[in-house]
């Protein structure tokens, strides 16, 4: 009896030590950012001047707007491309489902840096067809967010019986378009919100594509501004972390206890043999 209670005490001590140490490692840089961005280097005390620049500095404000618009365009593009495709696969072309899944998860294996090296011709065309605007980056970002959006939507579609819903609606005379837009989409609202939130959070933090194509998105501007005003860059970094974290944490609680464990616990990268959802 005493041996097992000693073992339990040891386990509790171990858990507290690990949680405190890792917690400190994750928290200290965030607190340091807050301290650094509000420090007054000229006088004693605190100043929120760097934070004020987030709205007053036209360069930074412009890049924030570009990134926000891009994130919305990406979420929209992702939904238009992925939702009809995934529903269609479940309804009519089951035999393609493995291929579609493989393609959707492929961007996890091909690093963004490799894609950007190979995209040279495609970006030249985009520049020629659409013009020299950062907004066509959304086309590339859709590929970047594909694996994460796919997982979120897949979880949502697995939770409802797409085939039976569709057969019932078809039996009552609904067209395929009605089935998708009016029957299935309203039933996967939570999954659509998760997929969009993840896409928005990823686009707001994206640097690789934008910097190598010379577009002034939020992250590119943060990196450039650091040469002129490091405090402003740190303030903008912290603000963008808090915004993205808020999006993702709200999301994991919105999607509810049972489902949250699935979506949060789902590994980032593909696990080829996943246990079927029915058995879990």
């Amino acid at each position, binding site marked *: 009896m005493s041996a097992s209670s000693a073992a339990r005490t040891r386990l509790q001590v171990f858990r507290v030590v690990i949680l405190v140490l890792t917690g400190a490692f*994750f928290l200290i840089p965030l607190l340091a950012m807050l301290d650094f961005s509000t420090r007054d280097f000229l006088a004693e005390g605190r100043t929120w001047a760097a934070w004020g620049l987030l709205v007053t500095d036209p360069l930074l404000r412009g890049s924030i707007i570009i990134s926000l618009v891009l994130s919305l365009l990406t979420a929209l593009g992702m939904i238009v491309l992925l939702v009809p495709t995934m529903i269609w696969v479940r309804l009519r072309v089951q035999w393609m489902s493995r291929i579609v899944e493989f393609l959707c998860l492929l961007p996890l294996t091909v690093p963004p840096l*490799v894609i950007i*090296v190979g995209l040279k011709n495609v970006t030249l065309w985009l520049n020629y067809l659409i013009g020299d605007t950062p907004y066509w980056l959304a086309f*590339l970002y859709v590929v970047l967010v594909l694996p994460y959006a796919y997982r979120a939507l897949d979880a949502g579609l697995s939770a409802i019986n797409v085939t039976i819903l569709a057969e019932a609606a078809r039996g009552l005379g609904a067209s395929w378009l009605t089935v998708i837009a009016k029957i299935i989409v309203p039933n996967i609202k939570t999954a659509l919100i998760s997929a969009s939130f993840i896409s928005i959070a990823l686009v707001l933090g994206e640097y690789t594509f934008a910097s190598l194509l010379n577009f002034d998105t939020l992250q590119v501007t943060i990196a450039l501004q*650091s040469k002129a005003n*490091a405090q402003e860059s740190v303030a903008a970094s*912290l603000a963008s972390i808090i915004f993205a*974290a808020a999006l*993702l944490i709200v999301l994991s609680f919105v999607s509810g*206890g049972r489902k949250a464990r699935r979506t949060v616990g789902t590994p980032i990268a593909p696990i080829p043999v996943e246990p079927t959802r029915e058995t879990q």
Partner: protein
Amino acid sequence: MARSRVARLSSALGLVPFLAYLVIFLIVPTLAVAVGAFTTAGRPSLANVAGLADGAILNSLWNSIVLSAVTALIGGVVGALLAYAVVTGRPDGLLRRLVTSICGVLAQFGGVTLAFAFIATISGAGVVSIWLDATFGTAFTSSTWLFELRGLMLVYSYFQIPLMVIVFLPALDGIRIQWREAASNLGATTWQYWRHVGLPLLTPAFLGSLLLLFANAFAAYATAAALVSQGSPIIPLWIRSALTSEVLLGRENLAYALALEMVVVVAIVMVAYSLLMKRTARWLQ
């Protein structure tokens, strides 16, 4: 028979927009890298790939491998301990939900913002460096170690540890409490249980997670790009300079060869990862 095949194919037409999109934005770029790596001025050639044998590039490949391996190991060990601390709590408790949510966020939190988090913490003007120097007389405020390989290792750990927690938790969940009870009923000590039951079961999942972390660090670009503005100590930064600078005249396609090198390393690691995960999935069910 023929009609059903026609129906099958006409249904598949619904996937054409999706497939076309991925061909343009994912498949073609990847193939372009493979082709470009073996082309010079429109002709097939091995010059680009041979360029990879350059001393400076080999050195940065070695640095990349060391960086990825060390951060995979740090992230793997610390992340596994953290996952174990979480999994021994209540399965639906607040702690578990909080840690998994936070890890989900932090695993994505590479890039420029992460670089600035550590610049604010432990660079020359960093909050912690000033405190350490004042308290222990160290020399962090006058050091540039954060912008070197050692610094990258520290910064990468910040997203590697949470990633490990996310990928390793399902494996730990697969360990049944009954096994522990059965072992102790047979008289096994804690050490014997871990030595003969727990660790052998978790080893494939642990090694698989290490490989995933390795690939994750090897392909990471934004964090290093924001921290290191000059020089190319690692392969991703070599790709940056090959893409952006005009200095490497006559070696325009070097970027393709470097990108191919990166994708080959990542692909090998990911194939090994999925093989190990297949093994794990067998007893997880």
